[in-house]
């Protein structure tokens, strides 16, 4: 234990305070070009024509990249996990969200690149757009995603829904003294790192590429770039690790593949730095979640069972949303022990920016919903919210929705600390409660079946 509790200097601290740290935008290469993207002005449209000849003929323009230049156009961020790819690196037949890249230009200056983007002719036939996940299931809803339809449909067992079934939920609701329901909706949120998406790609004399990346996930991004470019990993060298903030927003490989293609096509080093407007408009953000919770509750304050419906807004393409929803489903009881569960979750596509990770992917909005709901249940019971939470708090060997026995749940201590910090009064029984396995009054009939199984993992 030489590190815990010690004052260790940041290894990068001196560089950070003296302007010496080299971020991707600080990388300079001789003859480096600058890139700019042409992005969709529409939320949803069919592309009827794409002509880049005028842009290619402009002075100072060295490469124009369209869908035809991408060796593997459609790839999915979870393709490696067996989830089919659905997102083209550059739009081909359709644009499905405003800001979706259609072409990338590499030119002597960023101004020349932007001027060339403006000279690209794209024909669009606008289509009705879908923004509200609740309307995605209607028969006449616009179809957003041509791989999956309006919601992801390839879970295990060919299901189109992520399900959790545990215990006997119907019996729990039959036994309930009170049924409390609530609908909770969280908004989307941009991670807003101060460093926008940025990449510098350098073609090497032997045909290899060096890619200076701002990614939060180096080897993951290496795989994505190699897939798009259909190059072996031995031929692409990724240089990274210095990230000007990410917060999940740099898990998606946003700029590396296209910059690499532009470097390859132009034969010159290329830098592509997104503007702040592009960062806000088109980089993946935290998605909205629509959550409906119905709890079966006993008069003395036990949650006997929970039914939950979640609809996650993935935006136009899947990226990591199936992973996010799965994690969400595993956590849908939050810090509380509920033995009888019926969970249905959908990843729904809308004509919005594809959504992605941000600090507690799939769980942050869920925790908000669970805690608001706990407060609502306690109020309807007329019970002290601390007492309600502590009774139901996860204890050692209680099991999670995905049937993992908790080894070290901290809910009890967290609630006691919170009460202490806010001056809330707890009874002696609640103040001295521990995380230890349930016994006595804290082991009611409905929890006996799932307790004491001892390490169900």
């Amino acid at each position: 234990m030489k590190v815990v509790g010690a004052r260790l200097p940041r290894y990068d601290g001196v560089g950070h305070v003296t302007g010496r740290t080299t971020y991707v935008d600080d990388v300079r290469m001789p003859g480096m070009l600058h890139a700019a993207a042409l992005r969709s002005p529409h939320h949803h449209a069919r592309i009827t024509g794409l002509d880049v000849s005028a842009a290619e003929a402009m002075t100072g323009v060295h490469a124009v990249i369209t869908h035809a230049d991408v060796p593997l156009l459609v790839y999915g961020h979870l393709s490696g996990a067996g989830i089919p790819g659905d997102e083209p690196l550059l739009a081909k037949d359709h644009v499905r969200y405003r800001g979706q890249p259609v072409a990338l230009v590499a030119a002597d200056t960023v101004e020349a690149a932007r001027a060339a983007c403006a000279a690209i002719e794209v024909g669009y036939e606008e289509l009705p757009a879908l923004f509200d996940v609740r309307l995605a299931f209607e028969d006449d809803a616009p179809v957003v995603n041509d791989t999956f339809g309006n919601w992801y449909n390839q879970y295990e067992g060919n299901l189109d829904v992520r399900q959790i079934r545990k215990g006997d939920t119907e019996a729990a609701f039959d036994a309930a003294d009170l049924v409390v329901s609530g609908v909770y909706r969280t908004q989307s949120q941009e991670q807003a790192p101060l460093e926008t998406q940025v990449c510098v790609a350098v073609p090497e004399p032997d045909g290899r590429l060096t890619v200076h990346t701002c990614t939060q996930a180096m080897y993951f991004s290496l795989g994505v770039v190699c897939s798009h470019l259909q190059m072996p990993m031995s031929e692409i060298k990724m240089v990274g690790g210095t990230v000007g903030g990410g917060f999940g927003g740099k898990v998606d490989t946003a700029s590396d593949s296209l910059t690499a293609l532009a470097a390859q096509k132009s034969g010159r080093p290329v830098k592509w730095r997104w503007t702040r407007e592009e960062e806000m408009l088109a980089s993946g953000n935290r998605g909205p979640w629509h959550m409906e919770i119905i709890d079966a509750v006993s008069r003395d304050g036990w949650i006997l069972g929970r039914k939950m419906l979640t609809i996650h807004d993935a935006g136009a393409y899947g990226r990591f949303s199936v992973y996010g929803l799965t994690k969400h489903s595993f956590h849908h009881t939050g810090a509380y022990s509920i033995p009888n569960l019926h969970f249905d979750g959908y990843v729904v596509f809308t004509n919005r920016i594809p959504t992605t990770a941000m600090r507690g992917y799939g769980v942050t909005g869920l925790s908000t919903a669970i805690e608001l709901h706990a407060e609502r249940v306690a109020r309807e019971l007329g019970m002290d919210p601390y007492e309600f939470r502590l009774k139901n708090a996860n204890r050692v060997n209680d099991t999670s929705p995905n049937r993992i026995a908790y080894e070290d749940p901290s809910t009890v201590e967290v609630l006691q600390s919170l009460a202490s910090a806010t001056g809330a009064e707890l009874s002696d029984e609640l103040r001295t409660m521990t995380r230890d396995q349930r016994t006595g009054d804290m082991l009611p009939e409905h929890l006996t079946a799932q307790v004491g199984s001892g390490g169900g993992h």
Partner: protein
Amino acid sequence: MDLTVNSVARTVQSPPLASLLTVLREELDITSPKAGCESGSCGACTVLIDGEPRRSCLTAVCAVDGAEVTTVEGLGTPEDLSRVQQAFIHHYAAQCGFCTDGLVVAATAYVSAGGSADTAAISDALAGHYCRCTGYVKIIEAVAAVARGDEFDIAATASSANNTYVTIAGAGS
């Protein structure tokens, strides 16, 4: 146009309406001012112009003809850190570091003008700077420490210049 940048006389060839940020980064290769938003919102491009903190992204270079411009490179070096730089390291006020250079510049102007250790006054002075990592608390602690005249344990903190972790004697077992 002629500028003095970090005590060195420079003649600038960029167009007169080029932003000072672009001139510093692209013509003079001084990369500590960052292009976080290029619209005057984030503060990452802050430099001192004749001692006053200013947003270089909103400053046309012709407007600073003849002025003295100081970036964080001009405040101290890894071998000779300024007190504000020492404080930012000591108090862990730099995390990803992208906002840090602008904040160090602004904090330097604040303490140079005799700013106090009062947290509200420091918050006010640094209000034009976004930091997405720290939550600001450590930044304010660092600036307050400088204003108070604290000593910083640079032997422990600056020995990281060789990019290795150090083990603090007697910390744990």
